[in-house]
């Protein structure tokens, strides 16, 4: 049975349970709701929850686990010869799945009956052509092992689907029956329902933990695979990045890390002074009118998607930097450069720095300013010698957060910084010239993982190692920033 129907059926039963539970409770109290322990609706909800929740949980778990179990079983039964022809096990499995879909479609469209589909042999009259007629995507000629596996796949999926329907149905019915059995005027339905709701709330809040675990596990696992094929010392300390999908790549991370840090540095060199001065002016000098106009305008910059900044770098800033600065100075001919990406990223980061610093400056107690004014300091002296030192930890935190944003930023560098890694072997000049194209960790994650990739080669797996490195660096910066902000903020509260 299709999953949608199972879900609808379970919900239908749950709805019946709601009314049955309600009526049964009222019946046991002789129709007098005052003699019930809980409000009548709670008895209904109790029945509804017992029917629906366990059944749907099992359904979800089944849907998650079953496909991979079927895959492993079929994959193991594939003969080695079939895999050798098709390249790798996962590619053959993809073909098997496509063939299975084609068989399903053939039956659905009435081109074959299920009997023929189950007994089809590849040497029988052009199977491939017949399956292609269904409109399914078949890329290569179907070989006998693939066809056998596809038939096996259909059989196993059918069995799995059948048992899933049975188990989920039985669970729903069992829950329904149990709920109705429990329903009685003295049954503490409200407490049960509330405990159930609370469990759901707790489950919802653990999704945050699950996400983190998912991120870490998925990257650890693939990074482990990568380090089996490529020495970790070479990766972390290698000074050359030259991936080659034919094999024999050099995948040193240092050139990418350098590009990332250099671009982030340029971005921060733009964003920190501008953002900080804007925050100081807005919180210390600006009148309410200017504040009402300028603050939202600067904050709009934070709401603009990064792809827009990327396009801005590509079509406006890149050509300007090249034609007005780089070429007259003879420093480079590329629209993609560290400077382009850094400038645009700096603009993106202005609102981060300014709104965080604004909050922090506003949190400095007025008494400190008054004390300074009383001693005869001018406004700017007060800011420089009293307010900023007091706000410094918070500002450092804000800068660290901005730095972590800059390091993890993707679209601006993909479109503005270029794809060539820093060439350490060409000497210092090529590496520190800000008008040369330079690539970053995030750009390479994108380029190694998009397009036709084989998930077994180190050239693809390196993206996971890069991702894990990026995750660790940004996580470290964030934790540090939060720690600094928390530790020093308490002074004035």
């Amino acid at each position, binding site marked *: 049975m299709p999953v949608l129907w199972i879900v609808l059926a379970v919900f239908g039963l749950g709805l019946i349970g709601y009314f049955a539970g309600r009526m049964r409770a009222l019946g046991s109290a002789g129709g007098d709701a005052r003699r019930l322990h809980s409000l009548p609706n709670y008895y209904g909800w109790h029945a509804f929850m017992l029917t629906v929740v366990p059944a749907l949980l099992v359904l979800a778990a089944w849907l*998650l686990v079953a496909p*991979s179990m079927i895959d492993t079983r079929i994959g193991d039964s594939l003969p080695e010869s079939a895999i050798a022809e098709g390249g790798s096990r996962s590619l053959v499995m993809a073909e098997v799945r496509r063939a299975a879909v084609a068989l399903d479609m053939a039956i659905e469209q009435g081109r074959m009956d299920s009997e023929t589909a189950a007994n089809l042999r590849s040497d029988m009259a052009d199977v491939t052509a017949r399956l292609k007629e269904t409109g399914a995507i078949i890329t290569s000629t179907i070989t006998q092992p693939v066809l056998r596996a596809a038939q096996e796949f259909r059989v196993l999926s059918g069995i799995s689907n059948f048992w899933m329907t049975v188990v989920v149905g039985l669970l729903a019915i069992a829950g329904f029956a149990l709920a109705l059995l429990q329903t009685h005027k003295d049954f503490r339905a409200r407490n049960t329902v*509330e405990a159930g709701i*609370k469990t759901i*709330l707790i489950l*919802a*809040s*653990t*999704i*945050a933990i699950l*996400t983190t675990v998912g*991120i870490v596990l*998925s*990257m650890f696992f693939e990074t482990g695979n990568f380090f089996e094929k490529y020495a970790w010392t070479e990766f972390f300390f290698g000074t050359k990045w030259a991936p080659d999908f034919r094999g024999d790549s050099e995948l040193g991370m240092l050139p990418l890390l350098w590009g990332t840090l250099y671009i982030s540095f340029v971005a921060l060199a733009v964003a920190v002074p*501008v953002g900080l*001065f*804007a925050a100081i*002016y*807005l919180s*210390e000098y*600006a009148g309410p009118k*200017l504040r009402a106009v*300028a603050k939202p*305008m*600067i904050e709009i*910059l934070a*709401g*603009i*998607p*990064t*792809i*827009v900044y*990327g*396009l*801005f770098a590509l079509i*406006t800033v890149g050509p300007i930097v090249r034609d007005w600065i780089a070429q007259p100075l003879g420093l480079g001919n590329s629209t993609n450069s560290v400077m382009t990406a850094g400038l645009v990223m700096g*603009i993106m980061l202005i609102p981060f720095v*300014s709104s965080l610093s604004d909050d922090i400056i506003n949190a400095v107690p007025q008494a400190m300013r008054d004390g300074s004014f009383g001693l005869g300091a*001018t406004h*700017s*002296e007060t*800011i420089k010698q009293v307010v900023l030192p007091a706000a410094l930890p918070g500002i450092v935190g804000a800068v660290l*957060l901005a730095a*972590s*944003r800059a*390091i*993890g930023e*993707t*679209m601006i560098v*993909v479109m503005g910084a270029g794809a060539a890694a820093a060439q350490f072997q060409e000497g210092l000049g090529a590496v520190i010239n800000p008008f040369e194209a330079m690539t970053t960790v995030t750009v390479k994650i*994108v380029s190694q*993982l*998009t397009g036709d990739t084989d*998930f077994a080669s180190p050239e693809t797996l390196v993206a996971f190692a890069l*991702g894990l490195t*990026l*995750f660790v660096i*940004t996580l470290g910066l*964030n934790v540090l920033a*939060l720690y600094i902000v928390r530790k020093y903020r308490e002074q004035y509260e």
Partner: protein
Amino acid sequence: MTDATANTPAAPKEGKHAGSLFDADARTQKRNASEARFRALGLGAIGIGVAALIVLLVSILSQGLPAFQQTFITLDVYLDEAKLDKNGERDIEKIKKVSTFGYAPLIKNAMTSRNEELGIDMAALGVSDKEMSAMVSKEAAAQLRRFVIANPDRIGDTVEFEFLASGRIDGYYKGRVTLESAERDSNVSPGQLQYADALKEGGALSTHFNWGFLTMADASENRPEAAGIGVAMIGSLYMMLVVLFLALPIGVAASIYLEEFAPKNWFTDMIEVNISNLAAVPSIVFGILGLAIFINYAGLPQSAPIVGGLVLTLMTLPTIIISTRASLKSVPPSIRDAALGVGASKMQSVFHHVLPLAMPGILTGTIIGLAQALGETAPLMLIGMVAFVREFPSAPPEGFFDPASALPVQVYNWTTRADPAFVERASGAIIVLLCFLLCMNFLAIILRRRFERRW
């Protein structure tokens, strides 16, 4: 003041403390100058921020607005029965067998007859027959074929069509292509441009608003004029639906637990730390997660809106949780106390009183989270959304599993193509995206203004 002006000071004394209080000494002047400099720096910083915003918007708008205009060529096409339906049976299956190549001569004939009508001499312009056919988009034959298949009874008639002009001709009227640049361009000749001018004079060529940009699917590399953002908008819409239906309930449930029920212990602390960290994890990491878990492990299809929606859900959850908790926190405790005082359970006080009062704040936060998700590009690229998708996804729920594109990814896709006409399309798509974001933020502001309560 009057005292000061009335008693004119005596002759200035020599020495350190000489002079009037109104004449600033050198040190004071220096301090005041530094004060003025500091203020100017602050004002300058704000100026830079605002100027950056304006330059950004102006550059995108000026590049992108032409994408909504398109050049069209109007032709009277004679649907030749001899070519389209040889035996005159009007059998739809046989008509379908005629490929777009079979339709190209019809368009060519229509152009020739239009030339005669307008008195344009092709030889004088130096435009060959092949170049003449290239004036009309390659999409025109497909458009004609779709029309014939939809209306087989019109075969034999002469029908007026408005065809897209090819990308270079369109660029000529947008200033992207000039007579000089055409000399160096292998795709267009100056003669073609003069021919286009002649057609325009004769009224057969016009530039007007192009709905196709909003409704059509992406088109291949060499026909930028036919590329639209229809599929991308649907893909983005589907993803937003997934995000809304998953992130809102989960986010609200998690916030209610953390804000109202969670005891202070290590488990709660862990959840909180996780949420604040997830909010700062680079978005591309979520893309890696989606690729590893949803596609490689769970076997969901690549480029499907459901996968994009799930990834964006995980990304938006922290935003929604943080804003929901803030609005739950802003409901005063007296409301809870009053509810508990008249005998409500803790759960009832939350669901009957606190939650409805916090709803405007929650919705505002959700809309802002959705706006963030709508503009997100990097994670979608990793889950295969960069693929070239021509087919519209079907209606939900099956459509969630069909390949689709997304607005920001479509923009990126277009910027990687060689033809400069695609850059214009990309900027146009950005304008559409920004319009959506503007509307969403506006809605959020209205919600906040209209329903926010101050306690």
